[in-house]
């Protein structure tokens, strides 16, 4: 490849060789380090390629070997330029191309962010936008060191930033602090634990607070399970004080849950007709050019497109986007669900519910599902018997505390 480019830039000739001793001529060329390539035997003579510089050096060898040379063709850049020396607009076009390429290379046309997990690309790009760094910004106006400092100061969780301009691309690499910078404060607000659902308590572990129920008790939603009010009694077993704590416990109960999902009698199905159209959209700045055949017939089309930004030599991003558009024609029709269809949909719905419960860490003790006819459609009804945590924190109201404080004052209790 390198040799071919070198030959093209320097220009080369296709030469026919005839004469008394062509092999001697070839050996003489080899001895004088004259490079000959693509040597072929054709029609009783030889044909080869030789660079322009070497061709000028072979005149003495021609006489010595008593051969005759005939130039069949001239190739390469010098000959191309010579042949097109009068085509001024052609040259102007080539010059304009390189001028536009040079001018475009002075701007940022792509910004890439790597190494970010907590902060999304959009967050960082939006912040860069506030710094006036966006697509189409002059490269000369961007100071990478200042940019690195400003990102670090704006986002303290980012502990290392590297900003680099490569071609027309601004590459930002960040490293985030993997250790959390601030430990979440422990919630110490006094509260009770109340039941979120009806059920029967199966097991409980109380860490703080006073248990109000025991294992095997029937509970109702809203009932206090663990109280955050701890009574303090004196030696006479009289109430001396009430302490308010942040009740904390693991309370599990068996609860019943059911769901209902409506299945329509008929569903709208979609089928592809097999006809498709392809097209291209070119977007540059605010302009957009679409090459695509118009749709024929009244059927709807599903249109998908894949967008890519044009690049030259890897990092040289151009402000031009190409969308590859694909349109697929389809028809819709109504179809009544058969018994098998209903069975399949019922299983899918029920399986989805089971997966949702499993993701929450709920233990499923029993489950059942059935299909019921309801009006013109069908209903999927599922029942679960679950064992799940039922305690919900409920802050102890200020009024309760005040009432107790006032009662203490009337009784003469001061602490």
């Amino acid at each position, binding site marked *: 490849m390198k040799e071919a480019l070198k030959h093209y830039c320097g220009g080369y000739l296709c030469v026919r060789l005839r004469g008394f001793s062509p092999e001697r001529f070839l050996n003489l060329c080899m001895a004088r380090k004259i490079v000959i390539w*693509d040597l072929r035997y054709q029609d009783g003579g030889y044909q080869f390629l030789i660079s322009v510089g070497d061709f000028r050096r072979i005149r003495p060898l021609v006489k010595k070997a008593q051969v005759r040379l005939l130039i069949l063709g001239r190739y390469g850049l010098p000959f191309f330029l010579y042949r097109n020396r009068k085509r001024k607009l052609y040259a102007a076009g080539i010059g304009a191309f390189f001028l536009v390429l040079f001018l475009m290379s002075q701007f940022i046309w792509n910004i890439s962010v790597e190494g970010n997990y907590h902060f999304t690309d959009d967050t960082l790009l939006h912040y860069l936008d506030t710094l006036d760094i966006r697509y189409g910004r002059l490269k000369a106006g961007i100071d990478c060191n200042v940019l690195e400092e400003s990102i670090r100061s704006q986002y303290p969780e980012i502990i290392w930033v590297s900003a680099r301009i490569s071609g027309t691309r601004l590459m930002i690499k960040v490293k985030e602090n993997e250790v959390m910078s601030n430990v979440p404060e422990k919630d110490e607000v006094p509260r009770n634990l109340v039941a979120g659902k009806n059920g029967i308590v199966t097991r409980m572990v109380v860490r703080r607070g006073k248990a109000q129920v025991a294992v095997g008790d029937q509970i109702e939603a809203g009932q206090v399970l663990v109280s955050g009010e701890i009574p303090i009694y004196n030696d006479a077993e009289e109430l001396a004080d009430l302490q308010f704590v942040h009740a904390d416990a693991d309370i599990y109960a068996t609860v019943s849950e059911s769901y209902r999902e409506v299945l329509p009698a008929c569903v709208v199905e979609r089928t592809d007709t097999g006809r498709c159209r392809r097209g291209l959209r070119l977007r540059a700045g605010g302009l957009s050019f679409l090459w695509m055949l118009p749709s024929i017939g009244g059927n709807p089309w599903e249109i998908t497109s894949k967008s890519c930004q044009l690049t030259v030599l890897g990092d040289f991003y151009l402000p031009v986007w190409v969308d590859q558009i694909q349109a697929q024609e389809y028809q819709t029709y109504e179809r009544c669900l058969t018994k098998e269809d209903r069975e399949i949909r019922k299983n899918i719905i029920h399986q989805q519910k089971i997966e949702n419960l499993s993701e929450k860490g709920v233990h499923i003790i029993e489950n059942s599902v059935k299909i019921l006819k309801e009006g013109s459609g069908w209903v999927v009804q599922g029942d679960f018997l679950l064992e799940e945590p039922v305690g919900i924190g409920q802050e102890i109201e200020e009024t309760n505390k005040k009432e107790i404080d006032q009662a203490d004052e009337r009784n003469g209790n001061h602490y």
Partner: protein
Amino acid sequence: MFDQVKAAAADNLKLPKDVVLGEVLVSFVGRTSAVVENYRGILIYDDQTVKLQAKNCKLQFHGRHLHIDYYNHDEMKISGQIQSMEFGD
């Protein structure tokens, strides 16, 4: 005499003979191309025969549509349908 000593030394020291003795080295890629190293010159060339002079022998390629992709002082690449190659004195 000196050549025999060099050959013995190359044998005993397990040195490559193409380097020490200047022997011709031929590498084939299938039957469509061959690279010849350590040759001295071209004796005969047409589209069916390429005859080369090496230091201690001659070697001759037979085939069809033979052409020389490139050649220089060190090596030569022959392409085409190579049918045989023989050595001669």
